[in-house]
């Protein structure tokens, strides 16, 4: 993940500049997306992500039953016309639960990545800009935390906060901070060594202008590309925690938690376990494809190879 992402950053930094959009960062990102969708994988990924988002937003309209509605069918019914994904032990419609689960997944992705992206970016930015002691202490700390791997940090966070989906999201978010901080830091170092930064500096620009007008807009876009890949890790990690019972608790239709509950029925009703697992996998796949696609689209070398 690591190197893959560092590479993504390099490419993104280089190539977002060259992306054919006109004005704002937002439009530039759209330009990147457009470029990315020249890539088949990215198109599939984007399509799946859109489906996921639509599913999450319109869950009540899409799902034929309520997420917790018992007796929607008989319990442990195999997939059928009425219950596409079958029913669980309470006769709840698995399809509806998976659909509602999309909401939680989006929530996990947004909140966890939001936490790590925001805090990580700020830490990296400050460390890269400030230099000296601030830099050394911040980055040393980041290095230390980084060496623990995300799983351990997430576990420690849940151990302290106690198991719940909210805490799992926070834990996953915290765990990924060093990752974003490092990337933000290295991008900041690269950017601040570019001549445009020096030019602004010798034009007499103040700290605020240097950080927020010159550096931030230049480090955010590559980080957003990275965050796309980050969503997949976050979703996976949070589902893992839920699976272990450290995240979402039943009856929450969180996919990891559903898997965890479903495994008791595996021999009798394998569909209870199959569909949530597939849902996780497809979601993660979608973000991976999208992230990879963007990265590849931005990579002039890769492009030339195809």
């Amino acid at each position, binding site marked *: 993940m690591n190197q893959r992402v560092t590479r993504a950053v390099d490419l993104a930094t280089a190539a977002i500049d060259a992306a054919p959009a006109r004005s704002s960062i937002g439009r530039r990102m759209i330009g990147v997306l457009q470029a990315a969708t020249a890539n088949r994988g990215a198109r599939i990924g984007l399509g799946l992500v859109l489906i996921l988002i639509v599913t999450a937003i319109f869950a009540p309209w899409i799902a034929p039953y309520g997420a*917790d509605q*018992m007796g929607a069918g008989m319990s442990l019914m195999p997939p059928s016309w009425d219950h596409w994904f079958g029913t669980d*032990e309470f006769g709840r419609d698995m399809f509806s639960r998976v659909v509602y689960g999309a909401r939680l997944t989006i929530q996990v992705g947004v909140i966890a990545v939001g936490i790590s992206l925001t805090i990580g970016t700020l830490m990296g930015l400050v460390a890269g800009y400030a230099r000296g002691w601030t830099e050394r202490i911040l980055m040393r700390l980041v290095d230390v935390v980084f060496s623990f791997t995300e799983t351990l940090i997430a576990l420690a966070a849940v151990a302290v906060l106690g*198991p719940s989906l909210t805490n799992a999201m926070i834990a996953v978010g915290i765990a990924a901070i060093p990752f974003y901080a490092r990337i933000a830091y290295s991008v900041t170092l690269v950017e601040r060594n570019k001549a445009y930064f020096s030019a602004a500096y010798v034009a007499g620009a103040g700290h605020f202008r240097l950080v927020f007008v010159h550096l931030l807009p230049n480090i955010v876009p590559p980080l957003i590309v990275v965050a796309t890949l980050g969503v997949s890790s976050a979703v996976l990690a949070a589902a893992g925690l839920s699976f272990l019972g450290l995240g979402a*608790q039943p*009856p929450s239709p969180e996919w990891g938690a559903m898997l965890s509950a479903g495994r*008791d029925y595996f021999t009798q009703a394998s569909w209870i376990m199959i569909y949530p697992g597939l849902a996780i996998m497809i979601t993660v796949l979608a973000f991976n494809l999208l992230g990879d696609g963007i990265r590849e689209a931005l990579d002039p070398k890769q492009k030339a190879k195809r």
Partner: protein
Amino acid sequence: GDIVWARDGDIDSLDPHRATSTLSRQVWYQIYDSLLEFDDDGSVVSNLAESWDVSEDGTEITFTLHDDIMCHDGTPFDADDVMWTAERALFGDNPSLTKASWGNVSAVDKIDSLTVMFTLDTPFGAFVPFMADQFTSMLCDSNAEAADFGTGSAIGTGPWKFGSWTKGSEIVLEANADYVNRGRPVDNPGAPLADRLIVRTMPEGQTRVAGLRTGELNVIVPPIQEVKSLQDDEAVEVHVAEGTGQNMFLQFAVTRPPFDDPRARRAVSHAIDKDMAIQVVYGDLVERQYCPISRGVFGNDPEFCKQFDQDYDPEKATELLAELGYGPDNPMEIILATWTGDNRERMLQMLQNQLKQVNIIASIEVMDIGTLNARDTQENNKTEGPGYVDLMGWTWFDPDLLYLLWHSPGAYEGFHTPELDTILEATRTTVDPAEREEVVKEAFKILLEEAGQVPIYTPGWLWLYAVSADTPGFKIGPFNRAQFGAMEAS
């Protein structure tokens, strides 16, 4: 041959003073004996002690030991061992975690080599049955010489000798060839039939079932979902523990509306169809519970309790709610909490569904037990917030449990009344069984009428055993005591 018994977790310690988990208790029971035992009816009978005597005022209890008991290491078991155990548990620098349950023991005295006397400050009705509990397992004083007692060695007098413990994985127990059964409710007067009893930790339920089917395992704790198919399986016998001492009940945050009003609590009780919920979630594997303490525990009397509880009656519930101003336009919103595991969250989902029928909107919160315990106390200290109901469970072999739970301030600082306090104090000081039963029932009456505690079922954890049919002889004694003495190895 070996008997292999697979469970979902490991013991915490071999030392009965250092842990409290059921998983640990089950294993201690194989290694150690207590002074007394429970027979199949849950009555206290003699065991290591061939007789016991309670003084008139109930403060002096004297035990007389059999004179031919041998410890696993070959030393005789006598009054010194009892003294060593009791002093370690009560007066050592690191007393037993369950010290409080022993009552106010002020002194333990060795009368002679086979007689020991416990002196209590105040009479304590639960003391005698407690002497049949695993927490009072009798340890041999030769344990004092082992540096790793509790973690790597354990010397008792029970049917199985401790062999080895690979933590997290398995415990090997060897048959005690010299064992003489003096009180255990099992059909074998002497040494166990099998050579070894291997207790394995296997967290995944499905793999335990698979292991049982392949013959790798002889006794397993089956996942509830699989019980039906195991029961139908010729090659497997499913044993369901009856007197487990465990009970599951609802309790409320009673210090604020709506559940400071008994009517609200009764409404909840009326609204839930306990039988139906049990049926859906557990099938016929758990027993409906009517009393505040579990069936099989002293004082339990379903017929008595039924007079005071609130059976399923949605209309009544609606009525009560209406009295309190709740209705379809103004539904009561509450939190329904429990802790993880054993299908309890499924139970809550049933209750949630039923409460909805009478316009009580419950949101479910499932947390870990530690959080839940803290949360309950916290909820009782809050003056604001939605109503809070908790599906809680406790295990005890004696109605003294009620004292722990409901005598003010109470385990969770929840429901208590001055009247109940007085009665609960009496349950402790009344020693005569018949009189004690009376006071216990008085406590039941208050708890049930006030709906301070709404009993639902007797169930819990590790109370199902699936045993392969080619290794017969397995039995569960009362309070979930697995008996392997008469079991044949494969």
